[in-house]
């Protein structure tokens, strides 16, 4: 045995022997040993109440757990929707080439690296991304991905000297003296290099005695301009900088901090009409994201300063549970997890259910590839969610609360735990009601309430038949109310401002705001909060600024794997549960991925089916086998091997899977296929009947050529081609050797003069 069994014993000691400790124990053991050796599993099953077969079932069910050793560094390549659209397959291939492992993943011979694919890292507006250990690297392409590895190896060898030759000579600036520096360190900020910027400001502060307070804040939603730095002067003047890299940071220190001369070029002015940033903000409302990026998420005092916990105080002072429920019902708030059930009604059911103990669960298992709203809220304003839960607990009479959070969100988990600790100290949590964070272990199906409950109980995340609904018999058979992060985050605002203020926004049946993770082929991606009733077109063009490529919008994907693709012709669809449902998509939790005309709709449908069939728990026949068969049919269509009748077969399977599956995953899994068939049927037909991919995406059906007239012979394509299929002399037109070309599209992406044609 190559590991210390005592460590395993210690973990069991800490976590307890109950079935519900199963997943926490496995997570802790894996953290300790980097994988789950079978001997450790044996030990766990011997020392706890979990039978070996069930333990092993859990360990093999969740994506997080590994039963074989991994390399020293773990590289996770994100294959979420936005990353897929942005070329994640190419990133996997490039990393595979660089490290000598298969593109699907594997461990290098020297055991330094293990490459793995993940469903989504929640950094969609920075796509494509990879995570090495706990750090996200963003906006990659093939070349950058390989270079990231080179740099990573170098960094391991020596620690960089942060400040180098920087010298800061600070003048006395009086009221203009910078007293606080806020740096956006949500996952997106970190991925964009925010940590390095933070380190520079920290080191300079110490070295040159600059005297400002350095604050880590969450995300304000403008992911496209990360890293963001805000300077606050003694007189209260605020200056916002975007796109700050190491050299900009040094420039800000030398000029603004030291001399009081702002670095105009990098300033972002949200108020200035006509600016990109103004456009990004002017149509938004801020209810859920009210404090995001404005306060230090690790400080309860900052939350209190902006009015935190006043809603709870108000409830505590004079609102009966019935009154709270009534307020929420009247506000018209509907579940933001996607299904859109009335939150107030849900609370009422649970309130009325008989039970000596009741539970509430905050579903923060944001598994939808292409969505990161919950992550941002938890990372930027965790107390808001706690406050919503505390009010809910009061309303339904719950004593225990759980936050079921994705393990892929380590920062969110960390900040939640800090917030819970602080709330306990202040007495908001504790005696009457307490909250525990449960880390999910990687299973999209656990977004389904009954599967989520099974997982908290320490079992495989397999849904069961409803009724009984969780409101009657949930966790350990007790009445349980489950809402998602955004729903809870709305509660304090509604209580504080009254139902009418909330219901002022929106449409007849969809009230308030909705947060979307705007990503894909979009100029200004990020986290946006819009009033219900706004059109998709407004979000995409006015807020998002249209496609990043400047090409026409082809479709927008809403609702992730359970949703669908809405075509450009329906862009006047409004954000409203029923209006979106009418298109065949669903509102979903808020993933909004924009695609330009280079996205192949069959490929997109295949992408989602690949996801769902991977995430199917495997219980129901139709979902387990049916989604696999749909994927196989889609795969053969994109490979140019589609057969007559395949479309009809897809339709038949889709219809059957929808009506004969136990849970939401199976019931909605066919939606991406059905909507693309509804709006883009001719694209399927072109693949099958003509062997043609109209979008020029499906490798088996396309051919790349270089236009001799447009090619400038810059050599960029020649350098990036992974199979050396391109020849040509410098400054002369290049040529693609058809027999060698693997249609990976690297040249197409890199060509600076659009000289590469695809047909």
């Amino acid at each position, binding site marked *: 045995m190559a590991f210390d069994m005592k460590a395993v014993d210690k973990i069991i000691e800490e976590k307890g022997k109950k079935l519900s400790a199963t997943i926490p124990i496995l997570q802790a053991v894996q953290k300790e040993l980097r994988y789950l050796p079978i001997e450790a599993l044996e030990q766990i099953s011997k020392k706890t109440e979990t039978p070996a*077969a069930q333990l092993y079932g859990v360990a093999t069910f969740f994506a997080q757990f590994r039963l074989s050793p991994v390399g020293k560094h773990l590289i996770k390549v994100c294959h979420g929707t936005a990353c897929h659209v942005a070329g994640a397959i190419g990133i996997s291939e490039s990393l595979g080439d660089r490290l000598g492992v298969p593109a699907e993943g594997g461990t290098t011979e020297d055991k330094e690296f293990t490459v793995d694919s993940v469903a989504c890292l929640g950094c969609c507006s920075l796509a494509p991304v990879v995570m090495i250990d706990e750090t996200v690297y963003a906006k990659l392409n093939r070349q950058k991905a390989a270079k990231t590895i080179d740099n990573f190896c170098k960094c391991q060898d020596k620690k960089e000297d942060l400040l180098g030759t920087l010298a800061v000579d600070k003048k006395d600036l009086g009221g203009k003296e910078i007293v606080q520096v806020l740096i956006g360190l949500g996952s997106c900020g970190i991925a964009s290099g925010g940590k390095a910027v933070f380190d520079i400001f920290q080191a300079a502060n110490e070295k040159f005695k600059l005297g400002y307070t350095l604050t880590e804040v969450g995300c304000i939603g403008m992911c496209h301009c990360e890293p963001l730095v805000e300077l606050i002067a003694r007189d209260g003047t605020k200056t916002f900088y975007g796109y700050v890299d190491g050299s900009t940071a040094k420039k800000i220190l030398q000029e603004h901090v030291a001399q009081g001369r702002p670095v105009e070029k990098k300033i972002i002015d949200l108020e200035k009409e006509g600016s990109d940033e103004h456009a990004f903000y002017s149509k938004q409302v801020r209810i859920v994201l009210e404090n995001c990026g404005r306060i230090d998420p690790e400080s309860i005092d900052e939350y209190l300063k902006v009015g935190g916990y006043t809603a709870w105080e108000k409830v505590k002072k004079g609102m009966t549970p019935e009154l709270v429920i009534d307020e929420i019902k009247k506000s018209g708030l509907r579940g933001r997890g996607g299904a859109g059930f009335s939150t107030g009604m849900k609370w009422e059911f649970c309130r009325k259910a008989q039970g000596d103990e009741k539970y509430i669960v905050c579903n923060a298992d944001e598994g939808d590839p292409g969505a990161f709203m919950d992550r941002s809220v938890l990372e930027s304003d965790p107390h808001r969610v706690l406050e919503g839960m505390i009010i809910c607990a009061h309303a339904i009479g719950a004593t225990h609360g759980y936050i079921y959070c994705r393990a892929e969100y380590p920062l969110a988990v960390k900040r939640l735990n800090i917030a819970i600790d602080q709330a306990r100290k202040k007495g908001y949590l504790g005696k009457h009601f307490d909250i525990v964070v449960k880390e999910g272990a990687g299973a999209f199906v656990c977004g389904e309430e009954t599967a989520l409950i099974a997982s908290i109980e320490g079992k495989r995340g397999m849904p069961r038949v409803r009724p009984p609904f969780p409101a009657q018999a949930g966790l350990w058979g007790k009445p349980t109310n489950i809402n998602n992060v955004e729903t809870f985050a709305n509660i304090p605002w509604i209580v504080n401002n009254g139902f009418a203020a909330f219901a002022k926004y929106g449409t007849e049946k969809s009230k308030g705001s909705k947060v979307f993770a705007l990503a894909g082929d979009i100029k200004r991606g990020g986290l946006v909060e819009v009033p219900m009733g706004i059109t998709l077109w407004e979000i995409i063009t006015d807020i998002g600024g249209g496609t990043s490529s400047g090409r026409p919008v082809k479709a927008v994907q809403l609702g992730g794997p359970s949703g669908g693709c809405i075509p450009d012709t329906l862009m006047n669809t409004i954000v409203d549960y029923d209006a979106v449902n009418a298109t065949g998509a669903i509102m979903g939790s808020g993933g909004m991925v924009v695609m330009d005309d280079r996205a192949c709709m069959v490929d997109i449908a295949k992408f989602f089916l690949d996801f769902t069939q991977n995430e199917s728990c495997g219980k129901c026949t139709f979902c387990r086998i*049916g989604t696999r068969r749909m994927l196989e049919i889609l795969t053969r269509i994109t490979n140019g091997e589609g057969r007559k009748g395949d479309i009809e077969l897809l339709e038949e399977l889709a219809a059957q899977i929808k009506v004969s599956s136990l849970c939401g995953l199976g019931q909605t899994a066919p939606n991406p296929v059905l909507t693309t068939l509804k709006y883009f049927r001719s694209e399927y037909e072109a693949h099958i009947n003509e062997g043609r991919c109209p979008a020029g995406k499906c490798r088996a059906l396309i051919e790349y050529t270089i236009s001799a007239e447009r090619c400038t012979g810059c050599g960029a394509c020649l350098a990036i081609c992974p199979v050396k299929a391109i020849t040509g002399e410098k400054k002369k037109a290049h040529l693609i050797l058809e027999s060698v070309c693997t249609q990976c599209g690297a040249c197409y992406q890199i060509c600076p003069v659009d000289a590469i044609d695809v047909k």
Partner: protein
Amino acid sequence: MKIILNGKEAKCECGETILTVAKREGITIPTLCHHEELAPFASCFICVVEVKGLPRLVPSCSTLVSDNLDVQTHSPRVLASRKVCVELLLSDHCGDCRAPCQVTCPAGIDIPGFISLLAKSTEKEAIKIIKENLPFPASLGRVCPRPCETECRRARVDDAVSICFLKRYIADKDLESPAPYIATPGKSSGKKVAIVGAGPAGLSAAFFLRKEGHAVTVFDAHPEPGGMLRYGIPAYRLPRDILAKEIGLIEKMGVDILLNKRLGKDFTIDKLKKEYDAVFLAIGAQSASDMRVEGEKEGGAISGIAFLEDVALGKKVNIGNEVVVVGGGNTAIDAARTSLRFGAKKVTIMYRRSRDEMPANKVEIEAAEHEGVDIQFLTLPQKMAKDASGVTLTCIKMQLGEPDASGRRKPIPIPGSEFTAHASAVISAIGQGVDTTCLDDEPFDIKLTKWNTLDVNSDTFETNVAGIFAGGDCATGADIAVTATAAGKKAAASIDQYFKGEKITGTPKPYLHSMGKKEEAPQELFEKVEEAPRTGMPELPAKERIKDFAEVETGFTMELARKEAERCLSCGCRSYESCTIRRLALEYKSEPDRFAGAKRHIFVDESNPQIRYEGHKCILCGSCIRVCSEVKKLDALGFVKRGFVAEMKPIFERPWNKSTCDSCLKCVPLCPTGALSLKVTPADEVLMFRAMGVDASKKIPNQ
């Protein structure tokens, strides 16, 4: 409380499931994952029903009733869903319901069954199982071209099992025994049937009709019964006494065989129709086709079958020293080898295509060459001329072109390659047809096909005239004996239905899942099988055997037979009878290939002394896991992984006997497929059914 079940009110109580209520009301809803002793699981979704007002179908096993719930258990939507459900399960189910040899055998003989019984030294049981489908195993054990062996999976390891020789061994042992097995005739039905033709089809029909208790009379034009088995196959391949003994056993069942009675001359069908309740025509295909060669008539070409018949009848046949046989089928080979035995010094077969296309059995071709027959491939006679010295043949060499309608490459003459050959006699064996002139005088027209065969319904063997059935070569054109035998059996089943006044549907076709053709079967199945070469058939030396008509192949000894029987892999599923998914596939007319795709991999665990686990047959209903956990509290089994690749495995995916299993066997009967089965052999299976009084012949598939 009440619900509305298929339009009718049904009383029920709060807390009951729809399934429970339906069962009480006598409505059968299929289930796979549901068992009364286990908590509802709702995974298979075969038990779905339609509830008025709900957009989705609901699993009846776990949906509780509520007052006035309006439920449809067999609506078109429900049936369509169940059909697809079974299709999806089958698309991921890997196994053979029946062994490929049995499925390939036209007669559907339970081959693993009889081989396993032989290995167990229970030959008496083995002959019974064979005769449930084939009345002449000793004869066919000698002459059958063995389609079964071409699909024998053992060939993936080394060579096919000698199925046919083993069958012959068992049948020979039976014939040699003091009291050979005679099938028991059924209780007299009072119905009489006339059969025309005492060949394999006619006698087989007679055998099976007698088993049902009908009175059977067989008419035949020849002086001896047996049809082509007697008059088309030379005695060195099928000794006359063997055939006679087997036919004798049929006669002992009470079948009357009237010989030297020729249809159209000695009697008519019209007359039979008046005297009997039904007529079965099995008149064969015994007229030779012409070679269509210039000078064929004048040149005096002898027809192959006429030649063989004359030899069989003991007539004097003058063929001289140099014989040329034209054709590539078994008749050509038989004629050539018979010519050698008649003293011909040089025998040449001329065939217009190459060896690969030759329709005769490979073993027969080799035996002929071994005996000195010269085969000239790609050779076509074009002209014949006779003079005092014999026959001069003008031939041309051929080359192969594109495949024709039969799939064989079409021979094309090579210009200028003409040559001449000399022969003392030319035997033409290029094909046979049905002599339908015997039907000319009937007052009704029996419909014929464009190939001049009798036009019958291929499932029921009915002709266009009510009460007249036909089968065998006269309906199919010349084919192998075992096909004719199978036709006789199937026609008998239809005639039995006709007598009973039932709808004539023929023999029902069961659903048979398959892992595909021999070469398609997954390699993992064979990896652990140790090689053991096929047991050769002892035979007379070539030089000696051409001297007379003594049987060339002398048969297995007991030792050889047992050794060969051990080679059988016992393909097929031991849960064939109990399998629910197979029954549902038939019931819902599921098409297993509609959703063909990746399948679960082959996994066999036989570490438990009593239980065999075949993971590739599992449909993940979880019944075994749940009974072990919920009822036994042992948790020896569990789900592993998720989604399409999820599996049922013992603890830590270790061998079954390393788990906490106490071999209580509670899980085995809950398995709806053959994924979990008791470790029985095909022989155990046969003996078990025997003990239960089940006639397996009714259950075993025919094609």
